C-alpha cells in the first residue's frame, strides 16, 4: 500500500511539473497568437498587403492553447462540468459516500482517458495524413500543427491518470493527497 501511495505521490509531482511547463507553453502561444493577429491587422490595413498565413498561424496557436490547456483544466478541475453528484456525496461524512465520491472520480477519469485515446491514436493518424500536405496559404506543413491533437490527448490522459492516483491515495490514506507542485503554483 505504501508503495502505491509513494508511486502516485511521485507521479503527482511529475505531472505537476509537466503542467507548469504546459502553462508556460500556452501563455507563450497566447502571446504569439496575439502577435500574429496584430500583424495580420497591420498588414491588411496599414501596408495593404494581407498575408493569409498570419491568421492561419494564429489559428494553429489557438488549437495548441485549446488542446494543451485542456490538460491543465483537467488537473485544476477548471473544465465546464456538472459536479452536483460528487458535491452532494462529498457533503456527507459517511464512509460509503466517501468511497462513492472517489469511485465516481475514478470512473470519470477513465472515461476521459477513453476519449483521450481517440485523440491520441486517431489524432496522430490524422496528422500523418498531412505529412506532405501544405496549409491553404502554402506556408505550413499541416502535419506539425495537427500533432497538437495527439499531444493534447496524451497530456489530458496523463492528468486524468494523476486524478485517479489522487483518488486511490485518498482511499488508502483517507486524507487529501500531498500535491507539492500545486502548492508552488
Amino acid at each position, binding site marked *: 500500500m505504501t508503495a502505491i501511495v509513494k508511486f502516485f505521490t511521485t507521479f503527482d509531482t511529475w505531472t505537476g511539473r509537466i503542467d507548469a511547463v504546459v502553462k508556460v507553453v500556452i501563455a507563450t502561444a497566447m502571446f504569439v497568437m496575439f502577435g500574429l493577429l496584430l500583424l495580420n491587422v497591420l498588414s491588411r490595413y496599414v501596408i495593404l498587403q494581407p498575408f493569409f498565413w498570419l491568421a492561419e498561424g494564429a489559428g494553429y496557436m*489557438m488549437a495548441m492553447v485549446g488542446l494543451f490547456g485542456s490538460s491543465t483544466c483537467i488537473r485544476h478541475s477548471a473544465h465546464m462540468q456538472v459536479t452536483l*453528484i460528487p458535491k452532494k456525496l462529498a457533503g456527507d461524512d459517511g464512509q460509503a459516500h466517501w468511497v462513492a465520491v472517489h469511485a465516481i472520480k475514478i470512473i470519470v477519469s477513465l472515461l*476521459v482517458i477513453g476519449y483521450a485515446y481517440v485523440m491520441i491514436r486517431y489524432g496522430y493518424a490524422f496528422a500523418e*495524413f498531412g505529412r506532405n500536405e501544405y496549409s491553404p496559404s502554402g506556408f505550413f506543413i499541416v502535419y506539425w500543427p495537427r500533432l497538437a491533437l495527439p499531444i493534447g490527448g496524451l497530456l489530458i490522459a496523463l492528468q486524468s491518470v494523476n486524478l485517479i492516483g489522487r483518488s486511490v491515495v485518498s482511499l488508502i490514506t483517507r486524507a487529501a493527497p500531498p500535491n507539492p507542485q500545486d502548492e508552488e503554483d
Partner: protein
Amino acid sequence: MVIVLMLLVLFGTIILSVPVFGAMGLSTLVHWIDQGRESILLIFNQQTMSGLTGFTFLAVPMFLLTGELMSRGGITDRLIGLARAFVGHFTGGLAQVNVLSSAFFATISGSGQADVAAMGSVFIPAMKKEGYPGGLAGAITASSATLSPVIPPGVIMIVYGALFGVPIAAMFAAGLTVGILLAALYMLVTYLVCRKLGIPRYNRATLRQIVMAFKTALLPLGLPILILGGIVGGIVTATEASAIAVAYSLFLTIVVYKTVNLRSLYEALRDAAITSAGILIVAGVAISFSYVVARRNIPQIVANGLLSVTDNPFTIMVLIFLALFIAGMFIGRTANILMFGPILVPVMVGTLGYSPVQTGFILITVLGIGHMTPPVGGTLLTTALVGKVDVLDITRNIWPFIIVDSAVTFMIILIPPITETLPRLLGLGGLG
C-alpha cells in the same frame, strides 16, 4: 435507437461529472460504434481540429485576454467611479452603481464569471457595510453579472455566431438593445426593492465630479467604442477587433497607467489561456458533435417529435424554454449553446421561423435565467462564494430579477424587433 443512446451517453456522463468536452466526445462515439468504420474517428479529429483553428473563434481568447488585462490593470475602479457619478444619487445608490458598473465592465470583459469575480469582491462587502442585507447585495451582483454575456463583446455571442454562421456584428448590435433593456430593468427593480427597504443614497455628484469621473474612465471607455465602432461599422472583423482590443489594453495598462508589469502580464496570458482552453476544447468537440447531429438528421427528428406534441409554435417555444431553463441551472451558457445549439438552432430557425439572431438571444437569455436560479445556478453559487453570502439569503432576494429576466426572454420571443431592428437598420445580416 442510436440517437437515444447518444443522448443517454451525453446526459449520463454529464450527470456523472465528466467534463462537457468528454461527454460530447463520448456521445459521438456511439455513431462510430453504429457505423463500425474507423475512418469516422479520423473525421471526428479533423472536425475538432477545424473547430479549434477557426478564424472567428480567435476572438474568444483575445477578448478573454483583454478582460484579464483590464481587470489586472485596475480599470474596474475607474468604471465604478464613473457609474457612481452617474447613478449614485438614485435610491439604493451603491446598488445602482453595482448594476451600472457591471454593464460598463461587460463592455470590456465579455464573461459573466469575470464580472462576478471583479464586482462581487468589491461591491458585496461594501454594500453590507452600508447596511444592505447580504442576500440582496448578492442577488444584485449575481443578476447584474448576467449582463456580461448579452453586452458586446460577450464571448457567448462570438461562440454562437462562429458555430452557426451568424455575423458577429449582427449579434453585437442586437446585444446592445437587449443589454440596455436588461440593465434598465435591473436598475428599476433595484430602485423598487431599495425604496421598500429604505436604503440610503449618495449625494448627487457635482458637474465637476462627473467631469472628473468621466476623464478618469475616458481611456478605458475608448475600448468598447473601438470594438463596437470597428465591428458594427463594418471596418474590421470581430477577430481583428479583438486583437486591436488586446493591443489597446496592453497600451493602457503597461504604458499609460503602468499597472501591469511583466509578471502580471504573464499571469494574464496564462489565466486567459486556461479559461480559453476550457471553452475552445468544447467548441472543437462541438464541431464533430454537430457533424454527427447533422448526419443523423437529429434536428428534423426533434422537430417532428415536438410537432407531434403540439403544432403551436409558441407552445413548442415554451417546451424549449423549460428544457433550456433546467439545463441552464446545471451548466454554463457556452457549454449549453455548444451542446444543444446544433439540435435546437435548425429547429428554431428552420421549423419555427425565428431569425438566427433572435434564436441566439432566446437561447442566451433563457440559459441565463437557469444560471441564476436556485438551488444550483452557477452564477448564484459563484456569487455566494465570492461575496461570502449564504446561498439561501441570495435565493430569497433574487426572485424579482429572475422574473425580469423571464419577462425579457418572452419579450424577445414574442417581439422580434427587439433583436432585429438594429442589425436590420445597419444592414448587418443574420436575419434569415
